[in-house]
């Protein structure tokens, strides 16, 4: 027995220190490896298929054009099933095993929040987390200086939506139907800010993730006499809410936060969804914005499946653009610090779809404006300019 333990110790001593690490992980002369953690088999798995595909369209375009400073971008995708613990394991794998240069476009608020300790420990930047939670750009939290948020927070979106409603109709009675989790909590934060600044009171109704019946909430909206209802759901909920309201003969103006921007909302809701206004943090994929035109061109060129194309696919595309811009500005000698410095030089930078993005060492929120999109005759149409 002693012999075996001795052997272990000797083996250990011989090999200690043999592991070697590249000076900058994930960067070689020809390649930059980045990591992406998506929900590939959980409740949000639609996005898990679509978002990386969108990003890859842009990466392919860049790679075919010679890459960034001669380096091609390679994206590894892991699954987290919308579970923060799995997200941490996946991040650990990407960072320690696959030695990625940075993490990019990780989906979900709680998975992204759960990554903070690892990011801080390893100094890995997280570019464009795919969540609109305002908490992501909080610089006082761990790894705050490593996370670059591209989207307008839900809290900010709420303030903007309430402003917009009251501007047209000062007597509007506003109600919100929100998902009862971290998403909803961020929405409520914005709602109470709006309440305080406008001196109104907003009727709030909660629902549980995965709910399929909204009769109670819609009934309460009728009782409360809400004339404008903001739905802070994902894709399914606004459809059901609007259909239920139509069935009950209740027709307020419906608004939605950014996750409801998907074009299938109007598709599935049909006539009930006519006039639905959603707050988009980016321009429409089928609009005339410069990025959108290029995007459609590239999609046609690379034969992207038609079902994938849409707002979320486009979202993946433009955040890839932000990342690539940061990599370009980081210069030839790529390190993580240089990437951060490179991104922090962005000043009112126009991506062609996002509102102008500004980063500096004290603010990683990027942007705080949204564009409002209304469903007219079943087609999403931009109705405002950037509002903040």
């Amino acid at each position: 027995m002693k012999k075996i333990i001795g052997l272990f110790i000797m083996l250990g001593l011989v090999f200690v220190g043999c592991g070697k690490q590249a000076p900058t992980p994930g960067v070689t002369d020809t390649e930059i490896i980045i990591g992406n953690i998506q929900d590939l088999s959980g409740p949000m798995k639609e996005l898990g298929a679509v978002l990386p595909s969108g990003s890859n369209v842009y990466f392919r375009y860049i790679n075919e054009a010679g890459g960034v400073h001669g380096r091609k971008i390679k994206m590894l995708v892991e699954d987290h099933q919308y579970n923060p613990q799995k997200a941490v394991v996946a991040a650990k794998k990407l960072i320690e095993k696959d030695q990625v240069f940075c993490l990019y476009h990780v989906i979900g608020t709680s998975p992204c929040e759960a990554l903070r300790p690892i990011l801080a420990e390893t100094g890995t930047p997280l570019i464009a987390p795919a969540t609109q939670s305002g908490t992501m750009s909080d610089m006082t939290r761990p790894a705050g200086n490593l996370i670059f948020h591209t989207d307008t927070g839900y809290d900010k979106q709420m303030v903007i939506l309430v402003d917009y409603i009251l501007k047209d109709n000062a007597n509007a009675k506003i109600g919100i139907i929100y998902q009862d989790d971290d998403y909803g909590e961020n929405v409520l934060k914005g709602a109470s800010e709006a309440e305080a600044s406008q001196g109104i009171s907003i009727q709030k109704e909660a629902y549980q993730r995965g709910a399929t019946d909204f009769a109670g909430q819609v009934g309460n909206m009728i009782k409360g006499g809400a004339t404008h209802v903001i739905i802070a759901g994902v894709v399914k909920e606004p459809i059901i809410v609007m259909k239920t309201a139509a069935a009950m003969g209740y027709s307020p103006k419906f608004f939605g936060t950014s996750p409801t921007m998907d074009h299938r909302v109007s598709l599935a809701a049909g006539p009930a969804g006519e006039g639905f206004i959603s707050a988009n943090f980016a321009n429409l994929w089928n609009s005339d914005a410069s990025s959108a035109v290029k995007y459609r061109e590239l999609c046609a060129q690379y034969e992207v499946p038609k079902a994938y194309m849409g707002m979320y696919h486009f979202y993946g595309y433009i955040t890839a653009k932000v990342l690539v811009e940061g990599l370009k500005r980081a210069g030839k000698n790529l390190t993580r610090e240089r990437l951060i410095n490179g991104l922090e030089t962005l000043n009112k930078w126009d991506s062609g779809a996002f509102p102008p993005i500004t980063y500096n060492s004290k603010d990683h929120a990027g942007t705080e404006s949204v564009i409002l999109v209304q469903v007219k005759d079943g087609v999403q149409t931009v109705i405002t300019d950037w509002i903040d």
Partner: protein
Amino acid sequence: MISLFTDISQEVISGIALGSIYALIALGFTLIYKATEVVNFAQGELMMVGAFVNFFFVTQFISSAGESSLWIFFVALIGSIIFAVAFGWILDFVINRPLKDEPIFSVIMATISLSIILRAIVAMIAGPMSLLPVSPFGENVIKIGGIVISILDIFIIGSAIILVSLFYYFFNKTRWGIAMQATSEDPIAAQLMGIPVNRVHALVWIFSAIVATISGILLAPRMSLLDTSMGFLGLKAFPAAVLGGFGSIGGAIVGGIILGVIETVSMGTLSFHFEWIKEINDIIVWIVLIAVLMVKPDGLFGVEKVKKV
């Protein structure tokens, strides 16, 4: 006062519709539990598979016929039920037979892994994008007084009542049904009495798959988008089965409706008038369930098993 009454009756009606869905899923749990004492954790997934198969048939038939009519939905329904029969039989063959003499936990585990497998297979075949389900009833609603109910919900409530009474009759009045009850009480004695236990078990899995398919078909249009996460609804119907008393067919519908009504009323009128109810909205069902179990440990209609010393 009158408006309060209308509000509450509207919520109760919606709750009954929601509860009928729970009841349909709970009925599937109950059937298998009644005959084999197995808790089938894959019941929600069976429903999901049924909904997808039906969706496949409907879209195929519509695209080949060129237009949608009630006939197509009917034929697709028949097709889905035939599929459910085959599917139930296969499940019995794959799960029930190899694990016949094993502890009950093994079978539960097998059903949990089955649910994982089914979700993965359906997702692989159907692709990552969720589908837009089609309903033969469209968005039509009926208005009685101030109360609105959609035709789809009427169908859901109706099929829940019909299926539950059908199985209630079957289990309590027909020879096969009584044989099934005997099988669950004591499989060995039932075998000795000449009841073909294997065939009874296969039949029960088939029934359960059919019920799941029907509930999946009815539920899909309510979900607005069809994807594999529909299977998780099985877990929401679990308390309904338990509240009614596992293994009691009448209990499934009573438990389902009670929970459905509690859910809608607490989300609606109750949380409108009492702010704090919002905090406990998603656990109110569980609080009721635990409270009932504390008083009646075997559910509302469950039968206590007496062990002989």
